[in-house]
């Protein structure tokens, strides 16, 4: 096309690309949900600690709690206990809560509650871990058995990953005499893990025990043991019973190491039961919540970083370009005539306050009454400014009267009209009456209906909640709109109404 110059093409391409890229970045890299309805799972984990306190001793209960440095982020954490002091400390990548009391007796119950969700952004946190360690001391027949096992494992493995899984496979082969010896008749996961640890230590491969909780609603459970090894970049997780590699995504790392979940000083029969349930939450609200609880502030530089009041204003403001786009399409593509260029958008904004049906009714009533006043004023031969002032005052009085009446009648909606922009109405009346005089009543009606239609359409589009959410969350979409508007600036095809207007030509041909 001759008129669509290179400059404009480049500009449009750049704008659209920029808009698409920024939006894509927000959706795919930051993982911001595309619709407001998108929800994320919210897990509610309760750990109930029960024990019997010795009557005379001070009580000190220590329990591991999730360190939350991996894929999950805590929204809320509480330690529920009566008469106990609570402190939380970190050690070796674990977190431990300590409940302490000077005096307690008989059955005690403590609660730990954690509300968490998957970490919102998919960014990889860099992890560190040991890649070398010293061998554990082993003597006598165990040493022989271990070395006998090591030889084929070395042969069948290529790297840390295969080495570990090969080891686990061997240890789970209970028919092997060497394994039998090392396990010494105990085939629990704990014992197996110990043996695996031993074998790996001989090869100087570091290994850690990991205790996890499965995020499944309404099933009682105990921590599940996993093994993990660091390969220089990442932790590799292994199931000690099956050799299965990779931690399923529903596992929550609770603590690492050989220690027990709970230690009780001054008490006995300690028992921890886990119960959990999940609920769903609006994704973006969740994101805001997690945002406050983490350092990842990817929402900081979006419109969500604004104060709530301002956010609400912007939710309206970002939709104005959409309304303008409607007018642009209606006028330049369809060819509908409207009063002024952006008056329909302003009327559409006014409809926000009044609701559509009521707004159209009000608009019609006030405009009709205003028009009749205007035509009466015409006889008085007033100058323009005083005449406009009279019409404006009349509109204010009219709106006041409508508000009063509807209030007395118990229609609260009538009060919303107070915010219906009066100047817009006044100008509408003035312009409409001039159009009426100059072009006749038919044309004036056509323009008025066109304006109302455009305003209604713009209003309906500007009120679609999904669209509001989308544009507000991904404001870069507006760049794409600008690209479209620029292209429209050089649109040279016919308007829809012109096809009707020039119909005479087609008939002449037929």
């Amino acid at each position, binding site marked *: 096309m001759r008129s669509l110059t290179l400059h404009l093409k480049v500009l449009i391409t750049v704008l659209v690309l920029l808009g698409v890229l920024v939006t894509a970045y927000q959706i795919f890299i930051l993982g911001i949900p595309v619709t407001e309805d998108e929800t994320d799972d919210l897990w509610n984990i309760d750990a109930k600690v029960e024990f019997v306190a010795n009557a005379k001793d001070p009580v000190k209960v220590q329990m591991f709690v999730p360190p939350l440095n991996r894929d999950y982020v805590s929204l809320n954490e509480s330690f529920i206990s009566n008469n106990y002091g609570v402190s939380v400390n970190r050690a070796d990548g674990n977190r431990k809560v300590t409940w302490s009391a000077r005096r307690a007796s008989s059955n005690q119950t403590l609660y730990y509650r954690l509300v968490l969700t998957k970490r919102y952004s998919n960014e990889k946190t860099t992890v560190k871990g040991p890649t070398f360690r010293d061998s554990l001391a082993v003597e006598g027949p165990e040493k022989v058995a271990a070395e006998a096992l090591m030889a084929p494992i070395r042969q069948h493995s290529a790297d840390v990953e295969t080495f570990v899984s090969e080891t686990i496979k061997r240890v789970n082969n209970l028919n092997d005499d060497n394994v039998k010896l090392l396990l010494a008749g105990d085939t629990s996961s704990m014992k197996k893990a110990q043996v695996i640890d031993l074998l790996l230590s001989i090869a100087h491969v570091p290994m850690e025990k990991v205790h996890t909780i499965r995020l499944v609603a309404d099933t009682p459970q105990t921590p599940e043991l996993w093994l993990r090894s660091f390969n220089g970049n990442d932790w590799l997780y292994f199931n000690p019973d099956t050799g299965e590699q990779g931690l399923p995504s529903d596992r929550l790392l609770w603590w690492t190491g050989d220690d027990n979940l709970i230690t009780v000083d001054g008490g006995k029969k300690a028992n921890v039961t886990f119960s959990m349930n999940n609920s769903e939450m609006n994704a973006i609200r969740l994101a805001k919540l997690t945002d406050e609880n983490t350092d990842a502030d990817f929402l900081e530089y979006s419109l969500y970083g604004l104060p709530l009041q301002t956010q609400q204003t912007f939710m309206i403001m970002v939709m104005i370009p959409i309304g303008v786009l409607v007018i642009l399409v209606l006028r330049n593509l369809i060819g509908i005539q409207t009063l002024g260029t952006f008056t329909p958008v302003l009327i559409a904004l006014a409809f926000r306050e009044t609701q559509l049906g009521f707004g159209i009714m009000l608009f019609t009533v006030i405009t009709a009454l205003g028009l009749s006043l205007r035509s009466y004023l015409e006889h008085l031969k007033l100058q323009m400014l005083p005449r406009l002032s009279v019409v404006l005052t009349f509109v204010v009085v009219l709106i006041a009267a409508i508000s009063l009446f509807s209030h007395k009648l118990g229609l609260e909606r009538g009060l919303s009209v107070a915010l219906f922009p009066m100047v817009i109405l006044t100008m509408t009346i003035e312009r409409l009456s001039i159009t009426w005089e100059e072009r006749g009543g038919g044309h004036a009606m056509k323009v008025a209906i066109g304006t109302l239609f455009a305003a209604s359409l713009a209003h309906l589009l500007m009120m679609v909640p999904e669209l509001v959410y989308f544009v507000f969350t991904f404001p870069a979409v507006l760049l794409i709109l600008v690209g479209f508007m620029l292209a429209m600036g*050089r649109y040279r095809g016919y*308007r829809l109404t012109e096809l009707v207007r*020039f*119909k005479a*030509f087609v008939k002449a041909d037929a």
Partner: protein
Amino acid sequence: MFGLIKTWKALEARGIMGINRRNADYVLKYNKRHLYPIVDDKIITKERAIKAGIHVPEMYGIIETEKQIEKLDQIIGNRNDFVIKPAQGAGGDGIMVIADRFEDRYRTVSGKIISHEEIEHQISSILTGLYSLGGHRDRALIEYRVTPDQIFKSISYEGVPDIRIIVLMGYPVMAMLRLPTRQSGGKANLHQGAIGVGVDLATGLTLRGTWLNKIISKHPDTTNAVDGVQLPNWDGFMKLAASCYELCGLGYIGVDMVLDQDKGPLILELNARPGLNIQIANDCGLTQRTHAIEAHLEALAKDGVKEDAEQRVRVSQGLFGHVHPQ
């Protein structure tokens, strides 16, 4: 839907120009914004035209402030007929044509008797900008009332028929005779109900007409045939229109002219956004003609030649003249 696409294709094939194309390819391309005041303000147009020696209706006076309305009597003097116009009016709105006066009263061209006060109010309305584009303050212009040539008697109802020629870079592209009807209230604007009649650029013979977007060949009020009428002094009109390019510098304009029975062709006003109904009146699209002119201009630019108004008229008449009515 398919019907619409078919219509679209048919219009495209005939080179019918739509508003979007007119705006994008012609108005925006050829008309520099800063030159608009020359055509939007009739007083400036008139002053320029007089300076260039182009015939316009004689200006009796200008009223710029409310205070000056008092001078109305002085401006009118003892003339019996005159026209009051807003300088920046659009579409013929706000124009008051006084045909006669007796005692203290005036008679408009449509026979309505009005008082002096009503004329003053009209001027006051003009000054406040009621009729101007964008509602700015305006000036009122009082000028000679054109008496249309007798030739139009049979094919027009009241008012003054005028001749509109679209001029691209000084080359007349298409011409139309606009005839007021009863419905248009003596105004020569098509959207108010006037008839547009196409005119052959070479001969000045009228073709068939358009009325309310329909093709017609008879005047609805007088029932006389509007086609086949020979316009007098046609080359004069063409030259007048072509020379308006030098006058205003705008590349794409509609030149409105009248044929006064005493003074011959006069320029009434220029329009920087001429309407598209002229295509229906001529039963011909504008696009092919404008493309032909643009090609011609390109060829001229290659040779480094410039043509004067008379040569341009010849070129246009050669390219677009002698259409055979279908």
